[in-house]
């Protein structure tokens, strides 16, 4: 299934797999030890370097322009991913790999599944305005929403609040799903939301599917696909320190020497495409002479599309500001479980008063860990900070997802 899918859906490398089969991409022992020691050091350094938390690059090479980054590492096409998902689900149904009427997809944050499901062209069931809906109204609301087939719930995390009155909607839906009485539909669910609900309802068995983790090889192919290797020709990306190749993806008779960069990137991102892409965009560099050529002489097209890649060691990714108080942890955990929350919702779920909340949020925003959407008024964890946030929550004893 994996090889065929990779050939058929370059935007969904590895296809969909049962949740139990998901494994974090392998890495070297050296990198694991180094990462563990760095975590402990980060905790010990709490308060010593308060201003050194946001993203910064430790090399002097010029970064690419916004246009070049958009060209070399664009945001994935959500409609293409939606087509691949629907196709994959259809194949699974035909082959008997999916016996339930409702397909349940669990994916880590930033994997792009929710966005793809929004663009799937199916009838989208949006969450109600009042997530603290009284119990007597919940049954009727779901009856109304699920009366026709071919519906999609892009993100189940939008349908609940971690509040004693905010669990009813999902409790009712899961009860119906367990009986397979909700018609034909597709549900996307954040891995953090899923982690909470499998602990709340330990007997729940919905046989969820999940996108395969991006290993080093898959990530190389996926990044090449994103760079438009089919339409615009291959992108050549080489490491700045030793010139080893990262892209284009190696072919069978390739004599070029390749870097292990994508393997390390896949491990750092834990196989998560959205996180890997966010970091990848930050590693892309232009050499000074290349930059001058592209701007002044216009020779870029003669040489093909080229860029350079800074080693991961040269990046200082955003880190969670350390403090003895637990406020940051409450907020980050709540934001990940719900995929983003407004200030009012954060007050309800974290139990922190508004002033304390705003102080803690502003600190996380300054550290590039959280971003606030001014129009929607929703706060979310940044993709670039996700690896650090997950490690932080795990070290503090919070329940974390299995991705």
């Amino acid at each position: 299934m994996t090889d065929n899918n990779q050939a058929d859906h370059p935007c969904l490398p590895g296809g969909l797999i049962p949740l139990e089969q998901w494994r974090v991409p392998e890495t070297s022992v050296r990198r694991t030890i180094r990462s563990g020691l760095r975590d402990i050091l980060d905790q010990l350094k709490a308060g010593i370097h308060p201003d050194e938390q946001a993203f910064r690059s430790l090399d002097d090479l010029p970064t690419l322009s916004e246009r070049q980054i958009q060209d070399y590492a664009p945001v994935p096409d959500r409609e293409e991913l939606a087509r691949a998902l629907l196709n994959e689900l259809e194949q699974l149904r035909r082959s008997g790999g999916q016996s339930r009427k409702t397909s349940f997809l669990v994916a880590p944050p930033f994997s792009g599944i929710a966005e793809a499901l929004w663009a799937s062209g199916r009838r989208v069931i949006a969450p109600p305005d009042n997530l603290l809906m009284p119990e007597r109204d919940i049954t009727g609301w779901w009856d109304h929403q699920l009366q026709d087939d071919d519906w999609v719930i892009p993100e189940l995390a939008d349908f609940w609040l971690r509040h004693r009155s905010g669990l009813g909607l999902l409790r009712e839906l899961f009860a119906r799903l367990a009986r397979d009485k909700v018609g034909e539909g597709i549900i996307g669910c954040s891995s953090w939301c899923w982690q909470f609900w499998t602990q709340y309802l330990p007997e729940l068995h919905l046989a969820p599917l999940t996108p395969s983790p991006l290993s080093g090889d898959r990530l190389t192919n996926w990044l090449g696909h994103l760079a438009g290797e089919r339409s615009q020709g291959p992108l050549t990306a080489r490491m700045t320190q030793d010139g080893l190749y990262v892209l284009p993806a190696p072919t069978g008779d390739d004599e070029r020497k390749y870097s292990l960069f994508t393997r390390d990137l896949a491990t750092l991102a834990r196989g998560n495409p959205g996180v890997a892409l966010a970091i990848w965009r930050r590693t892309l560099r232009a050499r000074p002479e290349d930059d001058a050529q592209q701007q002044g002489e216009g020779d870029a097209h003669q040489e093909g599309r080229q860029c350079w890649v800074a080693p991961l060691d040269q990046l200082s990714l955003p880190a969670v500001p350390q403090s003895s108080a637990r406020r940051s942890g409450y907020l980050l955990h709540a934001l990940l479980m719900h995929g983003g929350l407004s200030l009012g919702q954060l007050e309800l779920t974290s139990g922190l008063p508004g002033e304390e909340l705003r102080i803690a949020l502003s600190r996380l925003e300054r550290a590039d860990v959280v971003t606030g959407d001014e129009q929607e008024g929703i706060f979310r964890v940044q993709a670039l900070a996700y690896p650090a946030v997950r490690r932080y929550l795990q070290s503090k004893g919070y329940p974390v997802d299995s991705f």
Partner: protein
Amino acid sequence: MGDFGIKDALSSITSEALLEALAVIVAASLLILMVQKAVPVLAAKLSGKPRLYLLASVPLFRLLVIVLTIIVVVPILVEPSFENMIAIFGALGLALGFAFKDYANSLIAGIVTLYEMPYRPGDWIEVNGRYGEVRSIGTRAAEIVTLDDTVIVIPHSLLWNTLLANGNDGTDNLMCVAEVFLDPNHDVGRMLGLFRDAIFACPLTKTYQPVLVTVAAREAGMCYRLKAYPLEPREQARFISDLTARAAEICGDEGVPMVSYPYLQAQKA
């Protein structure tokens, strides 16, 4: 042989040897002191297992330094022959046995503590009705800090004949119980469900550990016990307060009155 050969063994001690031995002992003491002060400060910045491991390393390190110091100091003072060793340690044993019996008892129990590990730094223990977190394990006694920030010194010798309750036993999983008493006339099944939801809704709950709500009919009313694990043992007071407040809020919303013993006692009177 009236002096057990101690006189012979000690006759070779010179003032230089004494000074040298003293310097080694002072250096070892300073090293122990430094580690005992620095490691807990570092551990306070960590959480979870690394914190517990770091704290547990302190008494082991101290024991190691003490043993090494003895190994270094004894040959400086006396010739380490079999006869001399018998004489020195025999005299030491007699002195400890008669003059410092209780002290020696605690010292030996302290060594047993390091081996059997009935409590480690970071554990929450209850001894003779005193409950607190083990802050340090000394040579003779352990120090615990209660929830009201009072330090209690517990001699290790209590180990021999006292019941000792350890809440987390070297892990960072400590079950907490919030207890509420309710007026008996209500829907028990509904309250069980609502209390369970309240535990899961609490941001301090370790949801991957068991979450339980039990109920029992008592003289004071229906006794509900909300049992769960806080994210960190150190947060237990806050966690129990939070669960109690959430339970009280539910009782208020559901119109189920909470009752208490003093209230019942007053009613009876």
